[in-house]
């Protein structure tokens, strides 16, 4: 079976040649080195290394699945499967006008609720804010949550969503992958869907994985 090339921290990925530096790389003497154990991605504009493991570090624009941690005075504290917790301000979550002094915010989201939201702000010191002001943002009812390595999420989605639509069709499940490594699954054949997601995570470095998953699910 074919396997993609792997670089280690400290190994040279390529000469810089005026290209942009992506994630997982650093510069030294006009050479680009890898920061992490991962798969190098080199094209004419950008050099980066996709890490094979690691925790989720929030970035603006990421669509993630969070779990409400705490209900505060003017918003919610959200666990985003990262070293940092995020804050969801009331104004970013609820559209209608509400008298804040009289309402209990747990009416909207309570501790333990799962939400699909977007990272709207990250400061230099990693203070994170999330927002529900997004087309796809919503509260997720019931369903199960599977945690995977965040860097594997693009593989679970597949090129142009090929892998995820395959899994959705074959298992008749609703699957929502959050970029923070949390995958939400609800539907008929949950066990099969979980199995498929975990297989993609474990064997993400293998070429021709889509066919393998297709075979596995039929």
């Amino acid at each position, binding site marked *: *079976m074919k*396997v993609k090339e*792997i670089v*280690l*921290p*400290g*190994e040279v990925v390529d000469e810089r040649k005026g290209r942009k530096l992506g994630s*997982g790389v*650093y510069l030294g003497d006009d050479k680009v*080195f890898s*920061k*992490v*154990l*991962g798969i190098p991605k080199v094209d004419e504009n950008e050099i980066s290394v996709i*890490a*094979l*493991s*690691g*925790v989720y*570090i929030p970035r603006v624009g990421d669509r993630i699945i969070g779990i409400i941690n705490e209900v505060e005075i003017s918003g919610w504290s959200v666990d985003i499967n990262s*070293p*940092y*917790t995020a804050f969801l301000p009331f104004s970013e979550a609820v559209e209608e006008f509400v008298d804040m002094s009289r309402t209990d915010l747990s009416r909207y989201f309570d501790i333990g609720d799962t939400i699909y939201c977007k990272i709207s702000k990250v400061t*230099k*010191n*990693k203070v994170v804010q999330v927002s529900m002001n997004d087309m796809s943002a919503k509260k997720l009812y019931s369903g199960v949550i599977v945690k995977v*390595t965040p*860097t594997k999420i693009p593989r679970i989605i597949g090129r142009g969503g090929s892998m995820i639509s395959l899994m959705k069709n074959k298992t008749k499940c609703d699957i929502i992958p959050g970029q923070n490594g949390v995958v939400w699954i609800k539907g008929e054949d949950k066990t099969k869907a979980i199995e498929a997601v975990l297989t993609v995570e474990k064997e993400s*470095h293998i070429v021709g994985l889509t066919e393998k998953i297709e075979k596995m699910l039929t």
Partner: protein
Amino acid sequence: MRIDGRQPEDLREIQMKIDIISSANGSAEVKFGNTVAVAGVYGPKGLFPRHLQESETGILRCRYNMAPFSVDERKSPGPDRRSVELSKVIRLSIEPTIFLEEFPRATIDGFIEIIQADGSTRVTGINALSLALASAGIPMRDLVTACSVGKINDTLIVDLNGEEDNNSQADISFAILPSKNLVTLLQMDGILGKEELIELLNMAKSSCEKIYEMQKKLLKEKYSGE
């Protein structure tokens, strides 16, 4: 010829494994002959109590611990003066390689357990921790590779075992960032001449390069095959 039949510049048999602790973000086991070190890395994760947090950077915490059954005479469990010092020394030798500034307010915890001790435990621990950090996906400038060298009966030797360690005239613990050619740990105990020291450091460097090749092979093999 040395006590275990090695030539002066020979390393002991080295075995390495990674991802042996499923609940850790990264883990490794390294055996140098009879010395066995297990390392686990947890994090980056939120750091509590909050007064330990650094708002500009993350921190690295290391613990070196010897199991009570790791030595001939039972070692009383828990941290003692020696292991507290070694924890710090190991932390200082690993810290420069990690991009801690990417994780403000967070911590990376590294634990080293010496399961079996037969000399050179700190360098075995450093090798294991460096593998564990790499497999945890922590951004690093380079791997860290360490080995020990020393002098016994006026002969310069590499990779001391317990017996040699106890009877040596001098011993050095040495760690480098192999592809950057930078030294992160250099400790000496005993008496050495200037030429001997230079000679020993060269021996240590070439041994570290051998170990580095093994670390590289192991990490790359993890994702090949199957």
